[in-house]
């Protein structure tokens, strides 16, 4: 199953999204990276890397993020990834809506490409 990583400045937001999506999809591998290492609003590359690590498999990983600086830290995490980073993709999609669709899709055993097709219409041009 495709792993889903949620990167947000806010721990609450990613916890909420995971709760919501898990009701509809118990099995999808979802990992969270919300807030800084000292639990302020912000993002943490170490949290992001270990979230990717937690849900990594050959099926790939999709990384969702809330705002531009979260994207930069996610990119940074990919640069230093131990795993094969060609299987990990940061996606430009509405955060809550895209993540829920992707989590449900992953639970249905859809492939990376199928999931990306399902969220293609949710692009927002969020990359900085």
């Amino acid at each position, binding site marked *: 199953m495709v792993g889903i990583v949620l990167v947000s400045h806010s721990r609450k937001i990613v916890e909420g999204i995971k709760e919501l999506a898990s009701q509809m999809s118990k099995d999808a591998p979802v990992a969270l990276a919300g807030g*800084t*290492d*000292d639990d*302020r*609003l*912000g*993002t*943490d*590359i*170490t949290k992001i890397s270990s979230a990717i690590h937690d849900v990594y498999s050959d099926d790939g990983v999709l990384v969702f993020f809330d*705002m*531009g*600086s979260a994207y*930069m*830290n996610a*990119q*940074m995490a990919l640069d230093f990834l131990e795993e094969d980073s060609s299987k990990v993709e940061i996606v430009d999609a509405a955060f809550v809506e895209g993540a829920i669709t992707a989590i449900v899709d992953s639970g249905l055993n859809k492939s990376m490409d199928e999931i990306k097709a399902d969220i293609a219409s949710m692009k927002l041009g969020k*990359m*900085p």
Partner: protein
Amino acid sequence: MAELNQLIGALNHAADVIEENKQHLTELDGAIGDGDHGINMSRGFSFVKKTLDEGGFQTPADLFKKSGMALVAHVGGASGPLFGTAFLRASMALKDKTEINSEDYISILKAAAEGIKMRGKSQAGEKTMLDALIPAYEAGETALSQGKDTQEVLQAVKAAARTGATDTEKLVAKKGRSSYLGERSLGHQDPGAASTALILGAIADYFAAL
């Protein structure tokens, strides 16, 4: 210009200056961002200081790499990956040099700016740290081409960074949080440009006082 020990001293001084200006940077970010730039930078540079204290650097490149990783890991905001990438690019530009001269200094500033452009998908004129850093290395290049000595080059860099940071007041933000404000960002200095000017100023001051 500098061996490993002096570079460590210069970074330590830069870290202290950032800490002294924590409140100021946070206020700048409070006006047009999310009000955490001082906290972010202070936290990041406190880990840089820790790294400097631990020591064990093989080369200047190693020093910049480890300092950059400290920033990447602990800043928490956009400035983390951006300054982190800047330091890492500086490290790569240095290769296995054991000391650096004023030409090397300008080269690593340029490499740092390229790193920020890549990481932030940004360019000059967007009201970011680049608007302090780019004029700074350009002034350094000019000083070098005029045959100025190391201290003069460092001072030229410092002055241009400071002017560049002040001039961000005339720019409309196109990147980062302050871009949400559009025109309303006019009249305010970009916090990342301000911290860039502080760091380059601290480095010049450190070497001037040696």
